[in-house]
C-alpha cells in the first residue's frame, strides 16, 4: 500500500482530511473489511462516493488524526456486543432474542441463520437482525451457561 499522508481535522461533527498535502475535504472513515478486518485497513471516502485513500492501520496517523479517525469509526460502526442472552427462542419461524449488550438491553429478531449469522470463527459470531442492526458475540465460550444454552436453542 503506497504511503499516504493524511491529516485529519473536524468542523463541528464532520471529519475532514487533508490527503497528501491537498486541501482538507469532508470524508467518511470506513473499515475496508468491517467483518473480518476491523482494526486493520482504513479507507477515506469523499462525498462523491470516491475512495480518496486507504491506510494499512490507524497507527500510521499522527495522534490527533488517529483520535478523530477512531471516533469516526466508533460512530459509524454500531455493533452491540452481547454480554448475556436473557432469552432466545424460535416462535412462528422467527428467532427472537432478548439480550444485554455493552450498549444496553435490546430485543431483536431474525429468521434465517444462514442469512443473518456470520461465524468469524466457531466462537465468534456476528448477527444482523431483519432491519440490519448489528450484534456481536465476541466469544461464545465466554458467555455464561444460560446464555450459551439460549444461543444453542436458536443457532
Amino acid at each position, binding site marked *: 500500500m503506497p504511503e499516504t499522508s493524511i491529516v485529519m481535522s473536524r468542523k*463541528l461533527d464532520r471529519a475532514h482530511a487533508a490527503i497528501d498535502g491537498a486541501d482538507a475535504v469532508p470524508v467518511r472513515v470506513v473499515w475496508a473489511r468491517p467483518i473480518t478486518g476491523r482494526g486493520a485497513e482504513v479507507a477515506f471516502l469523499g462525498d462523491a462516493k470516491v475512495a480518496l485513500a486507504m491506510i494499512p492501520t490507524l497507527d500510521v496517523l499522527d495522534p490527533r488524526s488517529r483520535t478523530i479517525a477512531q471516533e469516526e469509526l466508533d*460512530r459509524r460502526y454500531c455493533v452491540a456486543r452481547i454480554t448475556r442472552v436473557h432469552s432466545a427462542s424460535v*416462535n*412462528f419461524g422467527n428467532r*427472537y432474542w432478548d439480550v444485554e449488550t455493552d450498549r*444496553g438491553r435490546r430485543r431483536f429478531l431474525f429468521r434465517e441463520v*444462514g442469512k443473518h449469522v456470520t461465524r468469524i470463527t466457531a466462537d465468534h459470531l456476528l448477527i444482523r437482525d431483519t432491519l440490519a442492526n448489528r450484534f456481536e458475540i465476541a466469544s461464545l465460550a465466554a458467555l455464561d451457561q444460560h446464555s450459551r444454552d439460549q444461543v444453542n436453542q436458536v443457532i
Partner: protein
Amino acid sequence: MPFDREFPASTERDISAALEPGEPIHVRLTADLDFDQRFAPVRLAIAHKHVCVAAEARQIMVLPIAGITKASSDELYGSGRLTAETADGERVLAYFTRHLVPEMAAAARAINELIAGRTPVLPTDIDTASCARCGAPLAERGSNCPLCVPRRQILMRLIGLLSPFRYRAMALIVITLFGVVAQMLTPLTYKQIVDRVLTQGHHHELALWAGLMLAAAIASLVFRYAGNTLTSWLSGRVVADLQGRLHVHLSRLRMSYHGRREAGELVGRVMNDSMELLHFLKDGFPYLLVNLLSFITIATILVILNPTLALIVFVPVPLLILGGTWFWGKLIPLRHKRGFRIGRLHSLLGESIRGIKVVKALTQEDRRSREFDQNNDQLFKTTYITDRVFSGFYEFLALVMAVGSVAVWYLGPKGIIASGGRDPSLGDLMAFVAYIAMFYGPLQWFTAVLNWMSSAFAGAERIFNLLDQVPEPDIAADSPEAIAALPSVAGGIEFRGVHFSYERGKEVLKGIDLVVGPGEMLGLVGKSGAGKSTVISLLCRFYEPDLGEILLDGRNLATLPLARYRRHVGIVMQDPFLFRGSVIDNIRYGKPEATFAEVVEAAKAAHCHDFILEKEDGYDTMVGDGGVELSGGERQRLSIARAIVHDPPILILDEATSAVDSDTEKSIQEAIARLVKGRTTIAIAHRLATLRNAHRLVVIDDGRVIEQGTHDELMAKEGGHFARLVRLQTEINKLKTDQIVSIA
C-alpha cells in the same frame, strides 16, 4: 404512530423554555441511541424556528432553523444519524437504530421543508418496526406480531377455510368419533371373554364376543379408511384453494410489496408454508384429534373398570409429558441445525458444479473438497447427536411405559388374588394391559405433534399475513365504471414536482417536472441510478409518488382505474420476459383474443416473422422456462410484436436495444420506428444515438431534470451534460473500433 404526541413533562418543559413563546412544535420524535450510541432515548423536537435535541446526560441542544442549510438522514453500519449542515459545519442531531430509518427520514424532510419556508406535513403511512402491543420486534415493518396473534385466532381462520366443505368436515368428526369408539371396544371384548366365558362359564357367549371383536376390528378399519380418505380430500382441497388465493393475491399486491421481497421468499410462502400446513392437516391434526379422544375415552374406561389400577396407570403420565417436553426442547433445535447444515451442503455442492469451470481454471479443487468435507463432517456430527438424543428419548419413554406395565402386572394380580378375582377380575387385568399400550403410545408423540402444530401455524400465520396485505385498489378494466372513468386516452403526460423513494430516507426522484404531448416521443437520458427507470415505474403506476402528481390528459393518474389505465400502456423492456408457452401465445399475451392474422402482422412489423418460421414448430414453438432458447434480439423483437398487438396509445421503451448487437439493433430500431408512430413514447436508451428520432430529450441526474430540448439543441449547448455524454460515448466507440482494427 411512530411520532410522539408528547414528551415526558420535564423534557416538554425544557424544550418549551428553549423555544420562542408560543412557537409550535411540528415533529416530536424519540431517537433510540444516545450520543455515545448506547440504547437510550434522545428527544428531538422540530419546532417552527428551532430544532431542539434533549439527551438525558447532556444539556439541551438548540439549533435555529435559519442557521441550517440542509438536513439529512444517513444510514451507518447498524445504525443511522440525522445531521444538519450549518455555515460552521455539520452537526449530528441524533443517532438511531435501523428501527427509526423512515421516521428520521421524515424528520430530515420536515426540517428541509421548514428551511424552504413551508409547513411540514408528516407522513401517516410509516409502518412501525415493533409491535405496539407487546413491544416485540416485527419480522417486517407493519406486519402482524405473531406473538400477539392468539393461536385460537389462527385456528379459527383455518376452520373458516373449511366452511365451503362444512358437511364433509362434520362427517369427518362423526367418523373419527365412531372410529375411536370401535377401537375402544376390542379390549372390552377381551374382558368379557375372560370373565364371562372362561371364568364364569358362559361358553355359549364366546361366538357373540368373538363376533363383536371382529365387528369392532372391521368397523375400526372402515372408519379409519373413510376418515383418512376424507382428511386427504379436505386438507388437499383447503390447501389447493389457499394456494390459488395466494397466487391471485400476489399478482394484485403493489410493486412496493414485491420490491422488498425476493421471489424465492414468496414462492416459499405459497408452496412450502402451504405444504407444511397440508402435512399437518393431513397427518398431524387427525393424530391429535384421534389420540386426544382416545386418551380421554381410555382414561374414563380405566377409571370405570378399576379406579385403583387406573391411578397406577396414570402415575407415569406427568413424567411422560415432562420428559417429552424436555427431550423435544433439545431435539427441535438440533433438527433445525441439521436442516441448516444439509442446506449448506446442498448449496456448496451446487456451487461446485455450477462453478466447475472457475474451480478448474483456478485449480481450487482441493480447497472446494476441504470445504465440503468440513461441512459434511459438521452435518455428520449434528446428525449423530440428533439420533443419539432421539434414541435416548425413545428408550426413556419405553422405560417409563414398562414401569407402568410392570406395576399393573404386579398390583393387578395381587388385587385379583386378594379379592378372589372379583375386583379387579382377570378380565379387567386383560383389558388394562391392552389399554395401556393404547394409552401410553400417543403420549410420546404429543409434544412432537404440538411442536409440529406450532410450525404449521407459523406457516399459516405467514400465509394469512400475506393475504391480509392490502392489494392495489382497482376495478376490472372492462367494467362499466372503469370505462366511464377512462373511456379513451389521448396520451398527454405530465409529471409535477414528483418525489419518490423506494426506501424512506433514500429519495430517488427529487422533484421531477416534465411534460410529454400526445403522440410525442421523449427520450430519457442519464447515468445509471439517475432515476430514469423509476420515472417509468411511476408512469406504469407500479409505485405511487411520495409527493407531487402525475397527470394523464390533465387528470391525476392516481384517481384513474388502474387496470383500465394499464390497458393503455405498452412496455418493451431491456430483458423481455417470455412466459412458458408458444410464440403465438406470448405475442398475444396482452390481448388473448387477437387473431392469428393480427399476430402475424405484428410479427412482420417487429421483424420476427422470418425467424419464427425458421423454427421447427413455427408460431407453435414453445418458449420461456423449459422452451426453446432464443437470442436476446429474438426475444426483444417478440416483445415488440407483443406491444404492437397490445396497441397502446402510450409506449415505454426501457433500454429496448441495449442487449443486442449492432445488426440486430438496426432491425429492432426499424421495428421500433413503426411501433412508436402515433403513440406517446417515453424511451430510455443507453446508446444515445438511438434516441436521435426522439422529438425531445430530457437529461436526468440524481433524481432531477437538469436539461431538456431536441437532440440538436442539447448538442449545441455549451458545456451541456448531454453533449458531454455523447462525446464520451463517441470516444469509447472509437476506442473499441481502434481495438478491433488493431486485433485484426
